[in-house]
């Protein structure tokens, strides 16, 4: 296997190099670079508006403690079963409140079970432009935000960035890209339109995505 690998690799690279001796024609760039996306000005208002469009439940709270209490109400409304929670010092603080009624599985205990009913995680960034949540493997792992039918995100307004460009710049700058083997930009909950273009929610991933966004 190793033999073939290096032989094919060399052949392909040699062909590419030979092919590129002649440059391809191109559509010349405009002399003045044009704005592609209108700049995002009111980030919070834009985030809420985009969430409404992409079917994310965005709930703004005064502080994280209030978010934690509101999560309790959501947990009360979903069927019995485990709640998978990203193991972080901050979420551990709130867990006492949640664990009264639900059994909690921490991400440090292993990946989420298929039977888990909800997942609670933090995030790396919120993107106003598209109403998206950016998570990494550090947010409870790869399966955290996809296995359970409900995904709850606890975030603060500090994590909100205006657009995708800023979000990607931020995770690069903070070393999140190199430290994690996985990142996911989540926009709304899982859906499909493969049957007659009719929109159905909850194809393989969560049916509900709920973001608790605290102002402090």
């Amino acid at each position, binding site marked *: 296997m190793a033999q073939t690998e290096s032989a*094919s690799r060399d052949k392909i690279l040699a062909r590419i190099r030979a092919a590129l001796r002649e*440059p391809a024609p191109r559509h010349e760039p405009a002399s003045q670079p044009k704005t592609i996306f209108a700049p995002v000005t009111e980030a919070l208002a834009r985030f809420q508006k985009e969430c409404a469009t992409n079917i994310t439940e965005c709930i703004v709270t005064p502080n994280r403690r209030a978010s934690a209490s509101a999560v309790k109400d959501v947990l009360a409304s979903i069927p019995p079963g485990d709640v998978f929670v990203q193991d972080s010092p901050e979420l551990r603080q709130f867990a006492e409140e949640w664990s009264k009624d639900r059994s909690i599985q921490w991400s440090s205990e292993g990946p989420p079970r298929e039977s888990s009913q909800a997942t609670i995680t933090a995030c790396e960034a919120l993107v106003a432009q598209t109403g998206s949540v950016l998570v990494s493997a550090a947010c409870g792992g790869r399966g955290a935000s*996809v296995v359970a039918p409900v995904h709850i995100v606890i975030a603060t307004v500090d994590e909100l960035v205006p657009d995708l460009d800023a979000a*990607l710049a931020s995770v690069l700058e903070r070393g999140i890209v190199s430290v994690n083997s996985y990142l*996911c930009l989540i926009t709304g909950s*899982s859906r499909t339109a*493969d049957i007659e273009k009719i929109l159905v929610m909850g*194809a*393989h991933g969560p049916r509900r995505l709920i973001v608790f966004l605290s102002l402090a």
Partner: protein
Amino acid sequence: MSTASREFLRRAAEKSADLNHREILRRVVDNCNTSMDSGRLRFANWEAARQRCHEIKWEALNNLDRYLLEFEQRVKDRGGYVFWAENSAEACGYITDLAISRGVHKVVKSKSMVAEEIHLGPALEKVGIEDIETDLGEFIVQLRKEAPYHIVSPAMHLTRKDIAALFKEKLGDIDTDDPQELVAAARRALRRAFFSAEMGISGANFLVADAGMIALTTNEGNARLCTSVPRIHVAIAGIEKVIPRLQDLALFWPVLATAGTGQPITCYNTLTGGPRKPNEVDGPEEFHVVLLDNGRSELLADAERRDVLHCIRCGACLNACPVYRTVGGHTYGTTYQGPIGSVLTPHLRGLNEFQHLSYASSLCGACTDVCPVKIDLHHHLLENRRDAVRSADRPFTERIGFKIWRWAMQSEGRFALAGWFARAAMRIAHSMKLEGTALDPLGPWSKNHASPAAPKRSFRALWGKANGAD
């Protein structure tokens, strides 16, 4: 005429006469186009977005060796493996050998056009490995043992009644045509597959050179499960999929979503690079990327048509194409359908066998207008026609016809003479009812179209009379 060409014509005639099929196709495609039209309005300047995408892809393709090597190095740094495959056999061989050596019995696959291109499914089945498609549309066409109908919407030719009947027969635990229930049934069946498969296979929408990660775009979340749950993840991608920088995705993600489905952005845009890290909760133990050439480096050598490799497989040109809208996806008999398929297939699978696809176009240019990376699609179809005339087998009547045309166009007298013969021939053919028969050189056209009566006098004569030259 090649077998592929005869089959194409037969299926095209059949499908274009099937009004029910055309109605389904029209409804779905119109729906896509309406969403895309409104999606484009969310950009301050869609044309500037297309131009920038073109520039980024141009930069990537014209420095392909450099960016592929950078990608390879970064994937290795992350603990992944990179295999370079010259052709389908090598790519399938690598993946089946890997699966056998790791004791894999079941594979879950998320939608990959490259996997279709190399016929990975049959290769896995041949060595006794169960292969399950997890994208809902792909899952449906796999159950029907069919090829995908569209790059983005594989099952778009089916109604919910068709799918309900299929699920009732194959899955058993369901008897309804409610889309919500049908999706739930597929979800149940596929959840079992995700949690019992040892290997997940995905494509890649982009290979990000500076991050050493692959980018995957899905709405359903199936690619996320494929790349998270099984213990081995294999990603397979054409060498042209590389982009220089992670931040290029800030443009490509919204552009791909808009051109593909009209969404502002797709639900899940995932980046994975390498296996699970020691401190991470989950993820595969092994991560492999198969880089496939399969004729792409030869297309790269053609500077005139190098931009065909810019394609991000959004499917917009299929939806815009009047031919695709009439004959549908299966008529093409190729992995990639519509305008991009008609341009690409002769390069990947031989000009002589697939030259007819260059003629399956009205050259209206709708594909070129809609392409988010500005591929000059309809001119490439014209170039393929030029090459076909130079090097491939063309019909005898066409060659003679153009010889006569060339001779006639060289002087006024010859032109007048040829016109007189043509009018006479039309009158004779009409009186003997030869139109549309094997003896009629215009047969393929006049078979389905009523010819006008031959004019008594030529245009030149009428013009001369009207302008008083007589």
